[in-house]
């Protein structure tokens, strides 16, 4: 019984954090944001050198062969630095899907290039996480048609993984689709609308347990999005505590006022158990299949709620400075707000959790 990170995991986190501290300062984020750059080439290259894109890819295909908990730790670090690189789509959803559903040929074709960072993959699951303006994605043999909203990691993607309305999974090369980038509040991540018009595809999975496979892919994504929010929330809390310990008003450090101190305490009290929830959900994905789906739903939904609470309170602790662009606090705020809605809103995901438990 050891509910804690291993030494290797602590080292991984430390390594990624060190790299991000060097190469993903607020100035870098700010500059990328001003240029609508969501795939910072040098940062992505540095992460690639560490093997980050191959975290979840088996060593047989050139990856590092780690588990979802490790990916969640990386996502936490990336969220903590509001890093402008692809990850959730290209390094989590796509590798999980290809390894679960792909043929040997498909694994050989795609995984080594994803692991090395040579290519990135956008991922479009819009039909399955609360469809909005989407046109349902349909297939006709090895072609795909339809319109997918809020595909992830689309900027400069070389290939797209798309889930069809009936839960098939297809890989479509970038040249086959029309990509419209979507500009959200969060300038650090890339989402887009992908238009498939009889696009030729490499069908990953078109028979067998289509629904179950897709659901597992979504589970992985939800845990990792939750981890990203955890990291961003922790960063906001840390900044709020630091600011409260420095800023003076009325001849006192504001953190000595109960109003401010208690806001910090409430943030910490809400956020700290979330860390355990994310760990557990990730570990369940890796090792306790019967609990994986429910804990993924709860991690996604609960982090969405706590994330919003922390983002708001941390901004309040900073007073007017939190509202300006000067400290850049809003990058974290907006990342948390985007995460809330990705891969199923909290309301949507809780409803799934109700179904899973047979309550409806």
């Amino acid at each position, binding site marked *: 019984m050891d509910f804690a990170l291993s030494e290797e995991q602590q080292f991984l986190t430390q390594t990624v954090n060190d790299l991000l501290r060097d190469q993903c300062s607020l100035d870098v984020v700010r500059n990328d944001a001003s240029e609508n750059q969501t795939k910072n080439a040098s940062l992505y290259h540095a992460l690639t050198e560490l093997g980050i894109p191959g975290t979840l890819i088996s060593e047989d295909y050139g990856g590092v062969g780690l588990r979802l908990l490790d990916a969640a730790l990386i996502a936490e670090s990336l969220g903590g630095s509001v890093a402008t690189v692809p990850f959730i789509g290209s390094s989590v959803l796509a590798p999980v899907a290809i390894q679960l559903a792909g043929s040997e040929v498909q694994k050989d074709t795609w995984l080594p290039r994803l692991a090395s960072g040579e290519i990135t993959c956008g991922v479009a699951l819009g039909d399955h996480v609360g469809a909005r*303006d989407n046109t349902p994605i349909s297939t006709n043999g090895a072609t795909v048609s339809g319109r997918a909203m809020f595909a992830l990691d689309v900027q400069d993607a070389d290939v797209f993984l798309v889930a069809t309305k009936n839960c098939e999974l297809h890989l479509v090369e970038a040249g086959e689709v029309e990509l419209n980038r979507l500009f959200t509040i969060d300038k650090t991540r890339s989402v887009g609308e992908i238009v498939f018009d009889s696009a030729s595809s490499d069908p990953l999975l078109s028979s067998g347990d289509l629904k179950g496979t897709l659901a597992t892919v979504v589970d992985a994504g939800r845990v990792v999005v939750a981890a990203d929010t955890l990291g961003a929330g922790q960063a906001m809390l840390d900044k709020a505590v630091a600011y409260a310990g420095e800023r003076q008003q009325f001849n006192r450090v504001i953190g000595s006022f109960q109003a401010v101190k208690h806001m910090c305490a409430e943030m910490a009290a809400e956020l700290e158990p979330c860390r355990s929830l994310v760990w557990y959900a990730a570990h369940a994905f890796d090792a306790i299949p019967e609990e994986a789906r429910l804990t993924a739903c709860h991690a996604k939904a609960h982090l969405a709620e706590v994330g919003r609470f922390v983002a708001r309170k941390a901004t309040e602790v900073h007073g007017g400075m939190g509202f*300006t662009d000067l400290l850049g606090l809003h990058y974290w705020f907006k990342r948390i707000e985007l995460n809330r809605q990705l891969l199923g809103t909290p309301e949507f995901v809780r409803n799934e959790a109700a179904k899973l438990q047979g309550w409806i």
Partner: protein
Amino acid sequence: MDLEYSAEYEDFRSELRNFLEEHKHLSPGAVARAPANRESKTDGPNPAQRWQQLLIENGYAARTIPKEYGGCGEEPDSLKAHIIAEEFAKARVRPGHSGDNRLVPTVLELGTEEQKRWLVPPSIRGEMSWCQGYSEPGSGSDLASLSTRAEVDGDDFVINGQKIWTSGAQHADMMFCLVRTEPDAPKHQGISYLVFSMDTPGIEVRPLVTMTGEATFNEVFFTDARVPKNQIIGKRGEGWFVANNTLKHEREGLGDPHQAENRFREIEELMQNENVDGEPIMNNPAHRDRLLQLQGRMLAMKYNGMRVLTSQRKHEEPGLPRWIIKLQGCELNHQMAAMAIDSLGELGTLYHHSEHIRAGGMWQQRFMMDLGLIIGGGTAQIQKNMIGERALGLPKEPKVEVKPA
């Protein structure tokens, strides 16, 4: 309890409606009041100024400003003021103003005769626009600790320091400003209230971008800016008390209950029209219950606003119902924006040009702007202090001795 309007007010309202029907084509755009352009001053009255003049002549702007200073000289009548606000909003016509709702009442109450004649008439005519120089980077909640200094040199004050959160500074003709003139006095007693032109040499305005991505505020830097000594309102060292007069007028504007009701209606419509998986959001019972909870809060605040209005009309101090408006009103607006965003789901995160964007990203903009309002003009924490101390009579925090900075 009588929610009908008496004949006098019904007549007033229908006259106003007729006026608006007849003249609204002269109104310079229905959108938010565009700031007067300082460059165009020499070209005679612009459309906004002509519209303001027409409103004053008809008694719909600067109503309670005495005639000798260019206003209508009417008795204060909060009900008529309310009707004017309501009808202009309904007709989507740009309302008039009273010069500046912070500066003008302050000058009328505390300025010299000369200052009133100098400042009030052009302000009312829209020829002299204002920005407020209060907050400083080091002085937010603790405004009285401000450190921008004004030292006397000959016939002038010489100002050095920095202000922040100065909305409209890039367009304003004038600033009313708090400066420290007696650095050795206790902090509340060392402040003076000055007015001066933004063209004064030594003033630099830099836009301040906020989390919404817009530069609605500015920083203003002073380097040896010289202001004649007679441009002080009130006496030296009394600026804090002059300023409290201004703050009082500003505070009332926030958390308007009609704004909340309009916003609620927009969300209701949104939830009826937006679909998830082909189902209108309104069919989602969890979302619907949340909307209903917000409706209950919204109605309570709306009727609370009617109660405040009635008190004002009777020249009674509204007390608690007014003290809570900013805290509760801003929070309600923020919560409603959050509800709209959540109803929109992923689409609710869109913020820039997209064919899928709803209402131009307005809900995100409001969500953030409301958080700014929760913080600005007295943070929620300061509001709670005020409610606790002034409305409920609880004691203040024990004072902490000033330590040398």
